[in-house]
């Protein structure tokens, strides 16, 4: 008891040592707390790429190809699946854009997270919610089956899904609540199954989809109102906001999406065909795009 009293007297007295101790204590304690909290809380988010597309396009197959190097046999997915993989050594990432060829210093390839979602109509909410969820989504791979696009039904289904996705991205860009626009998400249209005999080449896939998207946006604008109109108090549904691309333009082109920050590229690939090119594995087109956008 007496010792405590003595100590308290010393601590509250204006002696140099007491002041020094207090100073050191008050300066280091916040720093310690900060480092402790930040060490625990920091979970470095890997850049995520989302795989989506109509059912049967080959998304899960592409996921296994990119993650393992060889595709595994797959069936219709019921649940989303994530995989962590590293950029292969042959691909350059965007960080290494300006690195010289002769630079031999070691560089570690960045690892990315791939998120595969089911394509069935009833399970598309996984894909849509991953789009709107604000994680470090760096890019979107929209996988289509190039062979099924030659039939009207397949083309319609693909186009409708692509329309929904692009509209969502456009709305996200134009209707942000703050003045700072969210980071633009680039889109890669992967025309899969190029090894099938009846598949359309990548350029034709692009033009067919553009044409079909034009038709879809036409009918959607004239279609029935939703039963949910009037539910949210955003005011009347602006016709311009639900029109994909350039308002009032005749046909739809993917270039029109660029003003809304959606950069769309088309590549053709095949998960089950033989790898073309020497030194390049299968799926190298996807890797180069991923590398450029990481």
């Amino acid at each position, binding site marked *: 008891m007496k010792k405590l009293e003595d100590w308290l007297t010393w601590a509250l007295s204006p002696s140099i040592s007491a002041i020094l101790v207090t100073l050191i204590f008050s300066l280091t304690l916040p720093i310690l707390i900060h480092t402790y909290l930040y060490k625990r809380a920091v979970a470095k988010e890997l850049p995520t790429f989302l795989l989506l597309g109509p*059912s*049967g396009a080959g998304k*899960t197959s592409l*996921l*296994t190809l990119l*993650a*393992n190097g060889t595709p*595994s*046999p*797959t*069936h*219709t*997915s*019921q*649940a*989303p*699946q*994530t*995989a*962590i993989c590293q950029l292969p050594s042959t691909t350059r990432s965007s960080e290494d854009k300006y690195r010289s060829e002769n630079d031999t210093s070691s560089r570690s390839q960045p690892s990315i997270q791939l998120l*595969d979602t*089911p394509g*069935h*109509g*009833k*399970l*598309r*909410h996984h894909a849509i919610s991953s789009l709107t969820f604000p994680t470090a989504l760096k890019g979107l791979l929209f996988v289509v089956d190039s062979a099924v696009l030659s039939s*009207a039904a397949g083309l*319609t*289904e693909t186009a*409708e899904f692509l329309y929904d996705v692009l509209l969502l991205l456009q709305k996200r860009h134009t209707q942000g609540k703050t003045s700072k626009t969210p980071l633009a998400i680039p889109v890669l249209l992967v025309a899969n199954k190029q090894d099938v005999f009846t598949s359309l080449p990548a350029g034709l896939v692009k033009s067919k989809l553009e044409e079909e998207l034009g*038709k*879809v946006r036409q*009918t*959607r604008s*004239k*279609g*029935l*109102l*939703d*039963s*949910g*109109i009037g*539910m949210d108090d955003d005011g009347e549904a602006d016709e311009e906001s639900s029109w994909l691309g350039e308002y009032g333009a005749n046909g739809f082109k993917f270039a029109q999406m660029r003003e809304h920050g959606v950069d769309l590229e088309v590549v053709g690939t095949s998960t089950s065909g033989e790898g073309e090119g020497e030194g390049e594995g299968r799926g190298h087109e996807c890797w180069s795009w991923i590398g450029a956008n990481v």
Partner: protein
Amino acid sequence: MLDGFEILTTSGIVLWRRHYTPISSNLIDSLVRDVFIEEKQKPGGGENGAPSYKKDRYTLRWTSAKDVGLVFVAVYQSLLHLSWIESLLTAVKGLFTKAYGQELKTPHTLKVNTAQWDPTFDALVNRLDTGSTRRQSDTIDSEGPTELTPPSSSAGDDADEPPPVPAPLFRKPAIPTKRDDVVGDSTSTDATPIPTPDTSRPATPGHAASHLLTAKGGPGKASRRSRKAQTFNASAPVSSGDESSAGRNLKGGAKTAAKGKRRWDVDGMAIEGDDDGVLDYSASATPGPENAERELDVADVNTSQMGSRTGKGQFVLKDLDDEVDAILASSSKPQQQSNATDDSTGSGLLASASSRLTSLFRNVVGGKTLTKADLQLPLQQMQTHLLSKNVAPEAATRLCQAVETDLLDQKTANYTSIESTIRDSMTKALTRMLTPTSSLDLLREVTSVTSGQGALARPYVISIVGVNGVGKSTNLSKIAFFLLQNHFRVLVVAGDTFRSGAVEQLRVHVRNLSALSQREGVGKVELFEKGYGKDAATVARDAVAFATNKGTQAPGGSGQMLYDVVLIDTAGRRHNDSRLMSSLTKFGQLANPDKVFMVGEALVGTDSVAQARNFAKEFVDTKGKLRNNGVGMDGFIISKCDTVGDMVGTLVSMVHATGIPVVFLGVGQHYGDLRGLNVGWAVDKLMK
């Protein structure tokens, strides 16, 4: 015979597969789609928890392990009836989960190393396969004797020694032993020492017996079989239920046992006469201790042989036997849940109060693992809530069941209570049920059909059906209005030839619509009617022919399509009146509509389920298959939604009953009061 077996994850990746014959991957894709995603099949159907799904002459049985997210599927031809598949599925599930469960629980695993699994699976199949339709890797013709082997663990024997040497020797006694069976024994007919009851036989020829004894080349085989056969002796003959085994004449033989046993000799001629002679070549003609000793002896030798000869594989098999037995035994025993003792572990007031407090605390804080008892009361409340929203009890039960299976043994997230977890899960289940597989875009479909190249262009035919007074004519005019606004030419057909005033009603509607459309300069609408009393199907067919206008009156130019869309109204009918309902089938076949919409009113209660089902099953085409991929109709129009406010449960009931999506909602009595379905809005209203 099993055609294939696959183990896949819920995200679609195949971890392991074994195909005995080529199977298209389309089969399992359609299983996943129809059963797991679209839930077209009622769950729980099927014996012993391995439900079955049939497609294309194949039957698929499956089981799933929810905790690791795996599905195990066995494929075989529908003609066979393999009773051992359930035990195979259970055993595979248990063993695979045990072997690879840990690996699969780590996130981001896309594949597992299944090299060790192949021999385990082979051993399992050999063990569980009851033998009559077993694939024989060796060349023994399994025609006669081996077919009727009782389900025994002769797997070990088969695995290590395919004995080609005794095979020809086996053939010889095949025929005489068939007569054995005729005499009245049950299961095993090979040269096994079964003491037959009426042994009025002379002693077996010495030479026959001796060479038979050597013929039992796999001595352990016969002895084990004999022991099993003796235990099965009392049971009914051949209860394995295999229908396709070739050598079934024995069963026929057994049947004639009562009549007077016919015997056949080597040349296939019937032998009349006395039932004596060389019949029983089995060694039990001299039964006795030396035989038993020999059996024991032989068994001993056999096991050690098994152990040493084939090494690691067989040792796995030994352990496998015990494990598999344990798994099968535990799965067949009824689950005894002793959750009664959970809460009242301590005795007395204090213990129960403190346990209640901790459970309350856990409920608020989260992180609680949900048990059946936990979920029971909140699910009851949720079910009552759904019932109060006018959802049919059948649908409410099914939804609560789905939520329960989803949430059982899951942990609640941080700071969420059980109620909110259940709400989340129910919202997801409702969204999934109400979301259509592919959304209907009526304008696109009409455009694509009417603009088909040249000769293929034809009008788009839509017909509306429903019970009395739900709003068919009103909603039909709303659809006509919508189509007119989009510049289509519409023909309205008065297919209700029964109710007084039906044709006049439609005439008034058409007059209003044409006035509206002329004012705006869009579209063209006309009424096609044939008065009262005619058959609605023929009226419809004539109307479609009129609209198509194929080359009949053609001054200049070929018969151009007169109308783009044909809307056919039908008479209201009670769904339990079979005569009226059957006339719908004829209507569907004659009119051949592109779309059949059924109108249901939002005010109807539990009758909606029966209505939807009865109407859906009437629309079969001439081959007897339901149209639209086996569901019958193409969509529901739920009318009078403005009158019910929040209680839009009819949507759920009708979709639950048939799996057909809701396409339109009627929200008023004017021409513009037609809306598409927004699933989020509907689920919000239901969960409010």
